[in-house]
């Protein structure tokens, strides 16, 4: 009872924006660190790694927009350069335009980019992109609440429950 009262009795402050500096990047706009061509490439890779077809689970910010923003704004200059070099090597070494390839072919290309013998920068680029796509997708409201039963205030702690 006390718990419910506590929850009801407290006005949780509405929070508009984070305190941290940010650029004006919004929605699906392309970050300036990447050229149009590069942005298209990243979008194609994001679509191949995690095709989000169900409208309900579309992230608040698309995978490619989040990935480009995170790289541009959160990575150190060295990390950014490495990412970009990987992206460019990926694009230059392709025998065929990735954006025009079929799904299966794209997945094959990505698999080989992540394999042991692949170019180090390319591996870095693809694995970082995959990591950021997952971070973005798994922290969306629809996924966390719908698929992971997330609640800021969890159920009361139970130290030991039998799995049914």
């Amino acid at each position, binding site marked *: 009872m*006390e*718990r419910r009262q*506590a*929850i009801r*009795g*407290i006005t*949780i*402050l*509405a*929070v508009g924006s*984070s*305190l*941290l*500096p*940010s650029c004006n990047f919004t929605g699906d706009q392309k970050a300036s660190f990447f050229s149009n061509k590069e942005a298209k490439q990243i979008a194609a890779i994001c679509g*191949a*790694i*995690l*095709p*989000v*077809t169900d409208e309900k689970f579309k992230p*608040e910010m698309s995978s490619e927009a*989040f990935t480009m923003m*995170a790289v541009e*704004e*959160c*990575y*150190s*200059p060295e990390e950014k350069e490495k990412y970009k070099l990987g992206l460019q090597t990926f694009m230059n070494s392709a025998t065929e335009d990735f954006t025009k390839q079929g*799904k299966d072919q*794209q*997945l094959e290309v*990505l*698999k080989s980019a992540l394999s042991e013998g692949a170019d180090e920068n390319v591996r870095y680029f693809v694995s970082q992109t*995959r990591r950021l796509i*997952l*971070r*973005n*997708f*798994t*922290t*969306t*409201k629809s*996924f*966390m609440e719908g*698929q*992971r039963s*997330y609640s*800021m*205030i*969890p*159920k*009361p*702690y*139970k*130290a*030991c*429950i*039998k*799995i049914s």
Partner: protein
Amino acid sequence: MENYDVIIVGAGMAGSYAAKEFCDAGLKTLLLERGRDVVHLQDYPTTSMNPWEFKYKGDLPWEVKKDIPIQSKCYACREDAAHFFIKDTDHPYIQDKPFDWLRGYQVGGKSIMWARQTQRWSDFDFEGPERDGFAVDWPIRYKDLAPWYDKVEHFIGVAGNKDGLDMLPDGDFLKSWDLNCVEDHFKSSIESAYKDRHVIFGRCAHLSEVRDIHRQQGRTLCQSRTLCQRGCPFGGYFNANSTLIPWAQRTGNLTLRPFSVVQSITYDEKMGKASGVRVIDANTKEEMEYGAKVVFVCAATINTNILLLNSKSDRFPNGLGNDSGVLGKYVAFHNYNATISGRHDGHLEFTTEGRKPTSAYLPRFRNLRRQETDFLRGYAATFGASRPDVGNSDGAGDELMANLMAPTQPAEAWGVYSQMMGETIPKESNYVSLDATEKDQWGMPLVHINIDYDDNDRKMEQDFLDQFSEMFEKAGFKDIRTATNTRVPGNDIHEMGGVRMGRDPKTSMLNGNNQLHAVPNVFVTDGACMTSVSTQNPSLTFMALSARAANFAIEAMKKAEL
């Protein structure tokens, strides 16, 4: 010049506790804080944000990260709470040896982001230096502090069990969270295999129940959100902002002045005592002085050392009260440098639900009742067993999406983990000192930090790993992995000493009431005063010492002795 009964330097938990005591006693109190104000509820901008509301989903932008290379090594300094840590580039120091100096400059200090572990010390700790022949004898014993632990625990709210252990005395606890079944299993296994080893639930400053005193503070039940580092809208854990400062303000006796960098304590040669403090406004850089009968220094260990070292006069050319020459020396810390993890394949029919704000704890057992090893002192340890629900994020394309959408399953085994919290020995060679020329933007000399591990620490780390490997094996844990060299000193955030208490003015700075031997109206009650460091998280002890010293000063002022 404005005059007060008392001036307190630093509005963290040590200074704010003293402020509460003085204000309750009707004394006009000036609380000077170098950072900004952080008002409970009002200034916790991220407290109610969901993960998807964070722009970077937990990471920090490079614009911020590049200026906090030290602070960002702290696990709590992430997108949700980085604004409570200082900017390293604004507050430089000189690492003669690697040392992570983690700081929060604001009203509330580090009490906003702390991990809330609150274990009492015992006479195994206070008698340690004398028994084992290091540092100097503490001028107090457990009995001197016990009533003040009671008082502080009652006021701030500490959850725990009465475990009946002499090395970790019980207090006036709120009900505890429970150990989970694997933690319980470890407890039974250890307690049946070893005579003097115990696994308990760590005591922590959370309101697992609400007493009248907490209602009076406007706080309510901890919801186990485990988002404490953001500040809590329920006041469910203790920080100075929710608990001490509003209380002191309600008395009408508190003047809180943020953005006030105390540069030195002024000394009146004729009166033979401190007359007040010299302050620089952090924003305008304007200089001002305040006067008081009593000065409490609670700027946290290293800043307190800096302040005293920088308070020079004809009488004290080497820093205030520093007749002995020990000021800045004998600094010690907690050795968190070894961890162990493993897997438990039993109890697979069980899991946990919800979250809990703290973990199990093993009080010190090594060299406790007698010297048993070739190193001095011992270690406490955290212990945790968890079995999170895990999802599958393997593959790519439709396969990855299908994996992500599949329901989570309890992990196939329990993960178990422990980390040492070792006592280090205060030594003259572990010290802080002021640079002769370099200053920060407020005119304070830069500090040199010269602190390192020693052989004793290395042997203790190995012993922790050996003992815990054995204990993990006895409990049937598998796939045991150990790690050392994970942290440099300072990253434990428990640095202590430099202005140590002691019986003899020739070898210590403070007496048993935390007064400078040579300047009795100046008190130091934060980590700087600690003669030795024990294994327990120290902040509860800082508050108990603050409360005790403040009440001593109140009585002495009543008798016009200060």
